[in-house]
């Protein structure tokens, strides 16, 4: 039949391609709900602001709050720990960025940028190792900060990654002290 209709596209070719395109788009649209259903559902997304009473946390003590299914370390650091964190030269840090949700994303990882504003002894951070999500152990490791037992990442007293496979400093969540003894996270 191609003798009568050489290379010239016919109306039938057009219909075939147009139908195929519509079918492909339709198939993709039909697949999407089956993928998207796996994403976090409304109940999981809903929310996430918690208030924590920190009046009982003495210097050198920590508490752990649960926020979005993950632990948040709230620690009133000792003066020695703050001094150690301030003493670390920025050039020694594996991750030079503060990772503080309350600051611009390029803020340097100084101790001031990691600690609570105006309360340099207080450190509030998501207690999840940035390597593969384990919970680091407090006040251990080479820097007396945190040590992740899973793969050996070591964090200093400001929660900054110093050695091991983790790529980033532990995250500081959005938070503020609503009073001297109350902390709101999220």
């Amino acid at each position, binding site marked *: 039949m191609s003798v009568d209709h050489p290379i010239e596209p016919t109306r039938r070719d057009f219909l075939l391609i147009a139908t195929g395109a519509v079918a492909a788009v339709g198939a993709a649209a039909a697949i999407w709900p089956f993928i998207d259903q*796996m994403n*976090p559902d409304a109940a999981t997304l809903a929310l996430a602001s918690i208030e924590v009473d920190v009046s009982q946390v003495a210097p050198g003590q920590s508490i752990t709050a649960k926020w979005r299914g993950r632990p948040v370390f709230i620690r009133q650091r000792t003066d020695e720990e703050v001094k150690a964190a301030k003493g670390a030269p920025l050039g020694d840090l594996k991750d030079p960025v503060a990772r503080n949700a309350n600051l611009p994303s390029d803020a340097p990882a100084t101790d001031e940028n990691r600690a609570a504003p105006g309360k340099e002894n207080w450190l509030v951070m998501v207690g999840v190792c940035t390597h*593969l999500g384990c919970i680091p152990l407090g006040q251990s490791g080479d820097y007396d900060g945190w040590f992740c037992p*899973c793969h050996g990442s070591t964090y200093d007293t400001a929660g900054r990654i110093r050695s091991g496979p983790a790529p980033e400093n532990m995250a500081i969540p959005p938070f503020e002290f609503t009073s001297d003894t109350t902390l709101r996270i999220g």
Partner: protein
Amino acid sequence: MSGHSSYVPTNRFMRWVDARLPLPRLVYDSFVAFPVPRNLNYAYTFGGILSLMLGIQIVTGVVLAMHYSGNSALAFHSVEQIMRDVNWGWLMRYMHANGASFFFVAVYIHIFRGLYYGSYKAPREILWILGVVIFLLMMATAFMGYVLPWGQMSFWGATVITGFFTAFPIIGDPIQQLLLGGFAVDNATLNRFFSLHYLLPFMIAGVVILHIWALHVTGQTNPTGVEVKTKDDVVPFTPHATIKDGLGMVVFLLFYCWFVFYMPNFLGHPDNYIPANPLKTPAHIVPEWYFLPFYAMLRAITFNIGPIDSKLGGVLVMFGSIIVLFFLPWLDTSRVRSAVYRPIYRIFFWVLVVDTIFLGWLGSRPAEGIYPTLALIGTIYYFAHWLVILPVLGLVETPRKLPASIAEAVLGPNYASGTAAGAAPPSGSVSAPENR
């Protein structure tokens, strides 16, 4: 290999079936008359053993699912009920848990047998690649199954392994949230893992059928690596392979039962009898033993490589350690299949075995002191084996002289002297009765 069918229906009913759905013919041609090399040793029985283990896992798994609850509030408790209350529940669970381990014992022997005898070489590349696909599916299935008891190791293993995906820039976090159904491992994660853990074994069974199909197109390799040339090189699958596979299965099951009945928790981790706690990571997380070599490679990368940070580097190395197997048929440049005739490759093969076991041992150690450095050395050697040693060795190694045929290798040179190239041997030159 897939020659003419020799199936002859024996009665009117079978003729009637054969004309409509020749399933009996397929079974006869595949598992009765199918010709197998006459020199297969017991290393070749693990394919059959693996099929048996898949069957055991599916049967015990379906039974366990009748009593298990895929909900984070109930899962741990339901597993304890299976152990204490359900009739024979302890047996089903121990068979299933140890069955996973023995599945991997068998698959590792099966893989190393393929490496030793060069089973991946042309024309068996697709057969090999399908095997690697099965291996990956097995790993995914085993990982998700280990999460279901919802103990501490379940929870933190799931956290670490889904954390792999966060290593990828930009798309990493959304992918992890898609897999978890949340921001951390939780009920949504457990529920979907249960669903997928039930699905994947049937996908494995599907790929196994393709694997066997590919095997029956090319025929089996054998310890000499010489292709089958005449009918004197082969014996019928039944009774020869059937009986040999059967004995292999019995011996394998003896070891399996020894673990199931006398040391059912030896291969498990005691921390998994502690209910999952999202706020406390166990002091020392280890995966199941069959993942340890890969785990060691993940942890070996503790430094940034240019733009690739240490975390992404570790994840890429770990996935790469299996992806490289897909390319093995083209990485090995030697035209000789079997290590029996490759004196230098044979040494490197055993060094690889030792290196893999060494990495496995390192994976069980804490990530401190000298261990990460040793793991890095082991990892470098592992990749050097595939990417440097195999390509180069094929070019420089002088293989030993291959036998002219399988029959000559088995029956001696006297057999060959009476045989013109390609022609059938004179009758009486072989003594095996099945060749009458």
